[in-house]
């Protein structure tokens, strides 16, 4: 075998590695964003105060409910599975149908509305309206439509919007420490929507 053969072989492997590395990096970024959103969404719970009645009627857990298609990878779930909020372990439940039963409404403290429910968000928010449940989503304009927190990816960095009116309406109190980090938005009125 000549030296040129080995050089060609090395070049080939490099090319293969370069092509293989591109999808891996993209997947990595995806995983990181999901994980961040998952972590952020449960950490919001640390800066929110639920009414005592809502906390007491649960079973020493804090319900983290995902509505619609699960947006998080296993790695993201793994990062939050043992997390504690208000001294309670997170109880993660996924409602793929996008519907919440009465029991689910009782158990859920945090509801993450997946992108898959973008078209049903109005309905979901109508169901959850006035209930002491923290609503989070990464759907654009979620807070303007009555959701409480919207996660936004700007330049690979997760930011969030807060709708303080929605918090007040639901009887939840949000910490000023969270508010000072967020962009505050107001709900679109019905006339504005039209």
């Amino acid at each position, binding site marked *: 075998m000549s030296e040129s053969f080995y050089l060609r072989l090395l070049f080939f492997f490099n090319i293969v590695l370069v092509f293989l590395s591109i999808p891996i990096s993209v997947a990595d970024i995806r995983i990181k964003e999901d994980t961040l959103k998952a972590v*952020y969404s449960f*950490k919001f719970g*640390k*800066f929110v105060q639920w009414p005592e009645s809502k906390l007491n009627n649960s079973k020493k857990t804090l319900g983290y409910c995902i509505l619609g298609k699960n947006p998080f990878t296993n790695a993201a779930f793994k990062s939050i599975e043992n997390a*504690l*909020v*208000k*001294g309670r372990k997170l109880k993660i439940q996924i409602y793929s149908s996008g519907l919440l039963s009465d029991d689910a409404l009782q158990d859920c403290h945090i509801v993450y509305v997946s992108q898959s429910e973008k078209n049903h968000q109005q309905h979901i928010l109508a169901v959850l309206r006035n209930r002491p449940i923290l609503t989070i989503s990464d759907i654009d304009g979620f807070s303007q439509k009555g959701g409480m927190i919207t996660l936004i990816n700007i330049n690979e960095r*997760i930011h*969030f919007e807060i709708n303080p009116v929605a918090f007040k309406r639901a009887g939840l109190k949000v*910490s000023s*420490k*969270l508010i*000072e*980090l967020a962009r505050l938005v107001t709900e679109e009125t019905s006339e504005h929507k039209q």
Partner: protein
Amino acid sequence: MTWLQNLPIKLKLIAMMMITSCIAMLLMALAIAINEAVTEHVSLKKELESLAQVIGSRSTGSLTFNDSSTATENLGALQVKDNIVYAAIFQQDGTLFAEYKSVLQSGNSPSINGPSGLIDNVQKIIIPKFSDTLEITKDIRLEGERIGEILIISSMETFYTNLLNYLCWVALIGIACFGVSLVVATRLHHLISNPVLDLHQVTNSISEKNDYSIRINHDRDDELGKLITSFNHMLEQIQVRDQELAQYSNQLETQVADRTHELFESRQRRIQWLENMARFLKHELKNTTVGIKTSLELMQRRTQNNTLDVYFERADRSLKYMNVLLENVSNASSLEASVYKESLSPMNLSKMIISQLEEYRSVYTDSTIVDHVDENVHISGNPDRLKQMLEKLISNALEHCRKETAIQVSVLKKQSQVEIRVENEGIKLPENKERIFDLFVSLRDEEHQKSDSLGLGLYLVKLIAESHGGWVRAEDLKAKNGVIFTVTLPLFQSPTTISERVV
């Protein structure tokens, strides 16, 4: 402390008060300064802890959601505190999350420039435990979970400046207090020094003038007042005692003079009586003996009987003895009358005694006289009387000494006196030996009794010794049988010697 001990009492009291107050002030200032430094340090630490707590709490959201700009804004609030030179928030894993640097600090390093040199010195001398900066770190917790750490570093320059200002004030107040204390001490020392000085002045005055009538006037009721009262009382007692002593002395002098006069008169009467008696006896008995003698001569002539001659001779001897007796009594009475009137003059006793002893040795060849005479013993005396006294002592010793034993004569000088000792072996003194110096007393036993011993010899010795201001005593020898007569006479004191003693 010798310098303090030797200061006058006024200065000593002022110095004591000032030293005491200065020590008290220094200790108090030191205690206050330490307390102030520690309190200020603790207060600063608490303030920093509070700030760390507040900023850390405010930054929980920033840390949770990785918003370092908000955390930096939170730290920026510390710029209102001039003393805070650096602050930082670290994430859970220790990486720097946000930081704040005072505009006064240069460079990126969180190390702090030290305070000025003067403050450095204050720090080193007074509070070496404090460093140039004070660092506070505090965990940032969210729901009990540690999510980061906040560090605040404060410069101690303001602390040291405040402390230095405080110490300057303390020093100024201390100097003012010293001045005030000095003025007060200068006024107050009189309370103690004046009575003591009064006492000193009065004791000096008493010792110089010997005047115990001086008193110290006071109106105090403290210990010094009681001391002065006691001192005055003591002076009063001394004064009264002096007066009583003077009174007793006068009385005693009067009594002595009276007694002396009485004795003199008594002696004069006795001498007079003796003279009269001797004269009477001499006159009357002489006439009687002349009659008896004439009668006896006539009887001897007319009887012509030789057998009676023995009786006539015996009667004649008795008459002669009576005449001798009369002569001696007459001499004794005249001697006592004259011996006190004779003048005394300085004389060398040693020479006189040596000379006399040589004469006795030539006369009493059968006897041995041993002497020990101190040289140059001078007394004030009458040489003739002293020779007479020595002769009586020697003849007394010769009469009573055992055969073939020597008579010892010694003259010993003892301080202001001289002792003339005449010692002989032989019979001891009789039991009532104190009477041997009395007139007409002879205590010799029959064996040693001589016909002409009328008890005049030792009486003369006593008379002459006393007329020279001395005395005589007789004692038995201790080691052997025998007697020692000791005449003690005062030594002559020349005017030079007397003046030397006075000086």
